[in-house]
């Protein structure tokens, strides 16, 4: 693999983690982001679960999309891209269910750490978002690139949720005005973090 390809992948990765952070620039996956960011430990495991599921579903959906749905695909010539949404949702939900059953059966330790977050991920829009952005025509990415993109997006989610958990643990001791306590101040902080992340725009040339 020559340098330019690796360089290209690095750009995709960094863009996904920082400049196009799925949470802070697209505001996807907000519900779990707000709900799980109360403690660092939970945020960390939730983030890891998102990374895992995003990468796996991106691979599966990439195969389905470019193997079946897109016009002129090897398995079916017709353009079925209008089915993308429903099929992606179905595969993500089924995959998460399957993973939950497998780890509940085989590793109670892993289930303890990640399992309880999996039901939350089933309907996580960040994951569907990554899957849908990946197949946008102007992205035009290969399987490796889309894997890297999914990995970066998952890690971006992990980064954002852990940052939030850290800030919220500081907030416990802060004197927040009563009407803003809880959700209010969390939304404001999310906005400020998003603005801070906007500062990275232009750092990675796409």
């Amino acid at each position, binding site marked *: 693999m020559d340098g330019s390809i690796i360089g290209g992948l690095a750009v995709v990765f960094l863009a996904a983690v920082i400049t196009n952070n799925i949470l802070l620039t697209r505001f996807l996956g907000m519900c779990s982001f707000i709900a799980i960011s109360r403690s660092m430990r939970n945020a960390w495991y939730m983030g890891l679960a998102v990374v895992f599921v995003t990468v796996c579903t991106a691979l599966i959906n990439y195969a389905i999309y470019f193997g079946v749905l897109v016009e002129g695909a090897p398995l079916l010539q017709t353009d079925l891209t209008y089915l993308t949404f429903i*099929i992606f949702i179905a*595969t993500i939900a089924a995959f998460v269910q399957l993973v939950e059953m*497998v780890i509940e059966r085989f590793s109670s330790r892993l289930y303890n750490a990640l399992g309880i977050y999996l039901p939350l991920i089933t309907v996580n829009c960040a994951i569907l978002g990554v899957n849908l952005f990946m197949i946008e025509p102007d992205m035009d990415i290969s399987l490796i690139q889309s894997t890297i993109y999914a990995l970066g997006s998952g890690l971006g989610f992990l980064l954002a949720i852990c940052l939030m958990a850290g800030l919220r643990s500081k907030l416990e001791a802060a004197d927040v005005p009563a009407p803003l306590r809880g959700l209010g101040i969390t939304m404001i902080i999310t906005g400020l973090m998003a603005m801070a992340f906007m500062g990275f725009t232009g750092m990675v040339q796409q």
Partner: protein
Amino acid sequence: MSVYIEAIVVLGILGGVLSALLALAGRRLANYGPCSVKINEREPIIVEGGGKLLETLYDQSIFIPSACGGQGTCGYCKVEVVSGGGTVFPTEIPFLNESELQRGVRLACQVKIKQDIQIHVEESLLKIKEFRARVSRVRKLTHDTRELEIKLSEPATMEFTPGQYVQVLVPGKGERIFRAYSISSPPANDNTIELVVRLIPGGVGSTYLHRVEVGDEITLTGPYGDFELDEDKKTELICVGGGCGIAPMHSIIRHLQITQPKKPCTLFLGAATADDIMYQEEFSELKKKMSHFEIHYALSDPGASPEWEGERGHIHELVEKLVKDKPGRQAFLCGPPVMIEAVSRVLQSKSFTKDRIFYDEF
């Protein structure tokens, strides 16, 4: 035309494959087969694996206290799992202290039965029964609080001690939801119990109990709670209740009036405003009949009820001011967690040992 057919075929195949995968996984992975559950020294029972321990115990007529409907947020449903419970979930950790973790205490609503399991349940919990009952009287106590008199029908009587509580089943679909309410009537009438219910906006239990009318059927389990009144006639009793925490005190004082009217007893009641004070007349009546009974009120809302001439401030400040330092007494507290914490701190500074302070939080 062929586009539609292809779309249907693709969706059908994909849906079929996913469903088949999930069905197969469900049969192979989520099927734990029959598992045996051994409770204390009883004969093991065989149940279908995969269910939650709390629900299984309920089906076996063992009513573990639980107030959140199996969500893992109340932390009441503690049982000791001797073997077969798997590792502790992060959802349980906040509710378990070091010694409980070492003893294998778990939250029954979080433990799934996946293998043969052996548990230990406190004997007192095994005595708890499920009651069918009917609302026999409804009385308004304050603007947001009502008193319900409930006549037990099956079983027809409940043996309880003053200070104990029951759990009322909130009807609905899905997992069973219970809410805990202290009994405010004395054990002398064992066929009816009284509950004091304050309407909490959005609260499932209080909304339900504020909607029921005379004649409506209610299901409840009980009695729960570990408060045991010191039967020694000379042991002084200090009762501290905040808001609705007056309910168990009402039971205790009326019980004392019947059984030991000369027992020294001091009751502290905290309320936000004068309008929130319940049972004021009843307690003044009781005071006339009981020579060693004293009662003190404090209003916590500083601006409210300008005509009020009694004490103001938080109830623990009044306890601090009026309770003397003397060993050998018993205390029972009922109210919100902050009140319990503040009052028990004050009482401990006045020679109350921890095992003599009983409390019910809500």
